[in-house]
């Protein structure tokens, strides 16, 4: 295990600062306190997967071996402050996305707690959209799913469509989304997701969608969102985009927080580790 450098000693800073009212004081927006997340996966076929084997297990009252527990996040603690943008790095499957979902309150914690200011939101509405519906209807549905009112969606509708550039090559917005190319669909999704202002914003590798010009536009939009949002979390495998956007970085490995500190230091250690 790598040596744990503690660039930001959370506890000390927490007790040392003046109360929130003082201007310039650091106001915490997200506090994770010994957070554990466990996934339960059914039907993994651990052991014999046949029906007779399953029946045998039931008859002999053995615990089902078909359920496997994945301890995705193991006791992570950190404090994020207003105005910070925090990068999350780590190899695939190290628990980065899971951590973000837990902070957003979408995955229940097995142990520990996450305290947040307001409602953190993940940037992404993919799950709410339906491929069989027209782009138009998806804009409305996605907006509503993110908690916007009908009026807000109507107000921002033109902005969303223009930003996505879907209509640059003809009237595509009135066609079902399944007729879009994957790039077009990704652009529309990002445009819908980015239409809402967030208190605490979490972005999960959203930068790598669309063609070059759209990437530039979306990077600019993320910078805008960052200015409006209190705190931004960014998960990415692109160290450059983390360096560009984040001033603090958390390094997760096997669900444990390996390092928490200024981006340059953490990325240097991360690259040396690989």
């Amino acid at each position: 295990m790598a040596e744990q450098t503690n660039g930001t000693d959370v506890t000390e800073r927490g007790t040392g600062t003046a109360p929130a009212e003082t201007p310039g004081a650091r106001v915490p927006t997200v506090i994770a306190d010994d957070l554990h997340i466990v996934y339960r996966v059914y039907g993994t076929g651990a052991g014999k997967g046949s029906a007779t084997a399953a029946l045998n297990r039931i008859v002999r009252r053995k615990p089902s071996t078909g359920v496997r527990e994945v301890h995705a996040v193991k006791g992570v603690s950190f404090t994020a402050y207003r105005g910070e943008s925090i990068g999350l790095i780590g190899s695939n499957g190290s628990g980065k996305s899971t951590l973000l979902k837990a902070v957003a309150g979408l995955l229940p914690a097995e142990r520990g707690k996450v305290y947040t200011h307001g409602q953190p939101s993940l940037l992404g509405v993919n799950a709410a959209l339906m491929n069989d519906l027209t782009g138009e209807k998806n804009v409305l549905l996605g907006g509503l799913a993110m908690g916007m009112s009908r009026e807000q969606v109507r107000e921002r509708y033109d902005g969303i469509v223009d930003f996505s550039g879907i209509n640059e090559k003809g009237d595509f917005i009135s066609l079902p989304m399944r007729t879009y190319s994957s790039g077009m669909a990704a652009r529309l999704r990002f445009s819908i997701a980015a239409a809402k202002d967030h208190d605490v914003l979490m972005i999960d590798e959203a930068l790598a969608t669309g063609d070059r010009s759209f990437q530039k536009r979306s990077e600019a939009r993320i910078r805008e969102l960052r200015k409006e949002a209190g705190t931004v979390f960014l998960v990415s495998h692109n160290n450059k985009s983390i360096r560009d956007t984040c001033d603090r970085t958390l390094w997760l490995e096997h669900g444990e927080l390996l390092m928490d500190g200024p981006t340059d230091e953490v990325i240097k250690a991360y690259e040396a580790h690989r």
Partner: protein
Amino acid sequence: MPQTLAPPAPTPGPAPARGTSPDPELRTLAERHGLTVSGARPSLPEYTRQLWHRRHFITSFASAKLTAMYTTAKLGQLWQVLTPLLNAAVYYLIFGVLIGTKRGVPDYVPFLVTGVFVFTFLQNSVMAGTRAISGNLGLVRALHFPRACLPISFCLAQLQQLLYSMGVLAVILLCFGQVPTWSWLLVVPALTLQFVFNTGLAMVMARLGAKTPDLAQLMPFIMRTWMYASGVMFSISVILQGKHLPQFVVVLLNGNPAAVYIDLMRFALIDSFTAKQLPPHVWAFAAGWALLAGVVGFVYFWKAEERYGRG
């Protein structure tokens, strides 16, 4: 909406090692700045308020689901009408022509079709409810909204589907010589009560199905059994005539919510189905079941709000 924090837990030993146990300092820090637990279950009134705030999402999601169902078919939305029509035709072929279960029921075709449509509404709502959470984990894990939106939305989609079926039913009734009367208006309260009942039941099933996805495999059998016990193809009052069944069986057959809602609809629509064939206190039963299922279902579903999305 977040909940206020509980009072601090008793402090563990001095200077706990980081990453191994909850840190009391972090909790105090969170409290001092008014931070709230992420993903905590809101109070019941607050939850209801949030749900009301999301009403447009619920309706849009329902109609989107329904539209998306038929977009790849060539006949498109026409299937919304064709499906119930074909359903009715199949049941008529089997029970009306082949088996001939008329069993002393006048206007058998309207009688049968009404029963089939009303029960299908119940059946589909329960089935959709069972899969409401477990079939939409992606959505539950990606966005924040009161989870009750999902079962309610699915039931609303079923209601919308039923309204198409009712249109088909009206045509069938006219074809079989039923003349629209004022009693047809009773459809509105009967359907409203059934919708509340269905939604409540769907919410119960949604919570059970979220914990045990296997229920989705089991439910079709339970629902089919329920259908045969609910007098969809036969008249319960005709069956009960001249038989001396134990009292509890009679109460059970007559109090069965599915039978209650089916009979109310028949009473509203079919002239030859008179009040005499209705079980006693039928409107009280209909309202009681709706109230019971609605309240119990909603509270039961809300109780696990913060746990949906796992597993």
